[in-house]
């Protein structure tokens, strides 16, 4: 069964994709909130929503024209997985855990929209609702199959759509099956979809499935752009060359910087990167500008990056655009 829903026209988004200018997206949410001292519980959305909104505002002020909801890996499984089963969660878990995810998703979109409303870019920026792998983004072996993923991702997508995100972004997709599921649910809720794949050490999807095959699969399901993310800059650069050869869609990437430093007990992804100072904003911007010069149009930052990185990238892309015109 596939439902073909009319994908809503979004003039700002269409203009971004159809133009020839670079599309600057934001940098990291999770790692930057943690770096700023936000205790990582419920994505900061219950206790530190003001800081989440503030960070969105800083990314917009830095020049981002697309901001991503702070919903990476925010789904009911991350709570259910730490209990024996649902009954156990009801028995010893805090009240309301079962219904918490939609509530947090709604808050995440609201703070992003409020940030945009407060921004000088109110009329030009779009909000992408982030759908991430349901299980740990670095564990493709745990990923659900297509059917299960579609059912669960649809629940998340519905909430994001109700709260009026402009598009959905399947981020750090680590298997083709889950990427297809995400692309399909976007169609079902009538939203444009971009898909971004997490790149493994082999330069393919983290699942080792070929990037080219993954791109073809999501193109068929109507993806409007293809990206690669959450690998170090050098790997993102190499993957972008593959993406360029594989698609005519607008494409791009956002690398992480530093080293993933997971906590010593937690179960799901925890946004903490160390040694990020080895990639100061100017160095990252120079690298990402090269990706742009090689044809990538959509650029931003993944884990470890900050508003300063996005501001530096905005600057670098300006000079890049001038360079391209004068050439």
């Amino acid at each position, binding site marked *: 069964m596939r439902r073909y829903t009319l994908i809503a026209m979004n003039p700002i988004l269409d203009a971004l994709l159809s133009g020839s200018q670079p599309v600057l997206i934001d940098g990291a949410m999770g790692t930057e909130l943690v770096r700023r001292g936000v*205790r*990582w*519980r419920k994505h900061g959305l219950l206790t530190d929503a003001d800081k989440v909104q503030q960070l969105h505002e800083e990314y917009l002020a830095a020049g981002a024209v697309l901001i991503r909801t702070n919903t990476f890996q925010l789904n009911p499984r*991350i*709570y259910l*997985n*730490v*209990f*024996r089963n649902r009954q*156990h969660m009801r*028995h*010893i*878990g*805090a*009240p309301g*855990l079962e219904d918490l995810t939609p509530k947090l998703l709604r808050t995440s979109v609201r703070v992003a929209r409020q940030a945009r409303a407060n921004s000088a870019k109110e009329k030009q920026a779009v909000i992408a609702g982030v759908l991430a792998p349901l299980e*740990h983004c*670095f*564990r*493709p*072996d745990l990923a659900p199959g297509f059917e299960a993923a579609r059912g669960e991702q649809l629940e998340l997508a519905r909430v994001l759509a109700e709260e009026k995100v402009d598009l959905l972004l399947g981020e750090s997709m680590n298997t083709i099956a889950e990427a297809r599921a995400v692309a399909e649910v976007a169609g079902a809720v009538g939203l444009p979809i971009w898909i971004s794949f997490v790149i*493994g*050490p082999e330069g393919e999807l*983290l699942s080792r499935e070929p990037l080219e095959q993954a791109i073809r699969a999501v193109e068929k399901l109507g993806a409007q752009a293809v990206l690669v993310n959450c*690998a*170090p800059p050098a*790997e993102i650069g190499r993957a972008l060359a593959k993406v360029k050869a594989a698609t005519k869609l607008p494409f791009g990437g956002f690398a*992480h910087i530093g*080293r*993933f*430093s*997971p*906590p*010593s*007990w*937690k*179960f799901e*992804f*925890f946004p*903490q990167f*160390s*040694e990020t100072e080895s990639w100061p904003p100017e160095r990252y911007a120079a690298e990402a500008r090269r990706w742009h010069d090689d044809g990538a149009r959509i650029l931003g930052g993944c884990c470890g990056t900050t508003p300063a990185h996005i501001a530096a990238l905005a600057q670098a892309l300006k000079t890049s655009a001038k360079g391209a015109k004068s050439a």
Partner: protein
Amino acid sequence: MSYSAIASKLGAGEMVILDGAIGTEILRRNVTWADHQLATRPEFVRGIHEDYIRAGADVISTNSFQLCRRALYNHFRDDKHRHQIGAADLDERANQLLAASVHLAVQARQSAAGGRPVAVAAAITTLEWCFRPDLAPSPKQAKGEYREIFQVVKDAGADLVLLETLNSISEARAALEVAKSLALPCWTSFVCDDRGRLFTGETMADMVAALEPLGVDAILLNCAPPGDINAGLKELLAHARVTTGAYPHIGRFDPPEWMFTDEYPPARFLQVATSWKQMGARILGGCCGTTPDHIAALGDLRS
């Protein structure tokens, strides 16, 4: 080794007071527990151990819940991926932090015990998530990992290992065999459900029959609400010949943190513990949600 003092107390039928929660106590003091705070705020962790010693604990447990190589490695696809994007110290981090967790407890004893015999128990849980027996590795695999962990805590000065929140007989047996092969005193503590069974559905009778012949030093129940612990303790006491004990959690698990409730203030906590003492349990303390005040209240159990 300070375990002999504890062993003689138990041998004489006396009560032994275990400490309360470390992880949730760190959270209650408004600090994140994401990385155990062993490297970042050692004085803070040591201070909580000292508070438990001053509250009267005979045995303090290290701040090492779920701290092992596997827990860190689980965040990556495989070795290749970890080496590509992971922090440089990850291959050594678990053992370094484990050793640090024991050192902090030993230091707290030096500064706060005032000559009273206090034993340091290395708190080690299941290799995978404590509430998920479905994820447990094979016993053969588990043994290798436990051997590494126990050697680290033994070398660092732990007096015994407290295997806590265990969820299956097979993993408990694997770990216990390794502890005994290293000549470490070993208490095994299980989470149980409201029927008084392990999370695998296995019975207390089968668990006791499997562990007693291997020389387990005590069998306890932990990390369930008092009502469930009560159900489990009835079953356990009906079958166990070794010393038994319990340390329930109070409040609610609010992942990744804890929700503190006023359902079991220290006085009521003591009432529950007193009923377990009367049933025959000899080692009593607190799991998640309990505080030094709860442990101080348990002092009345000695009378």
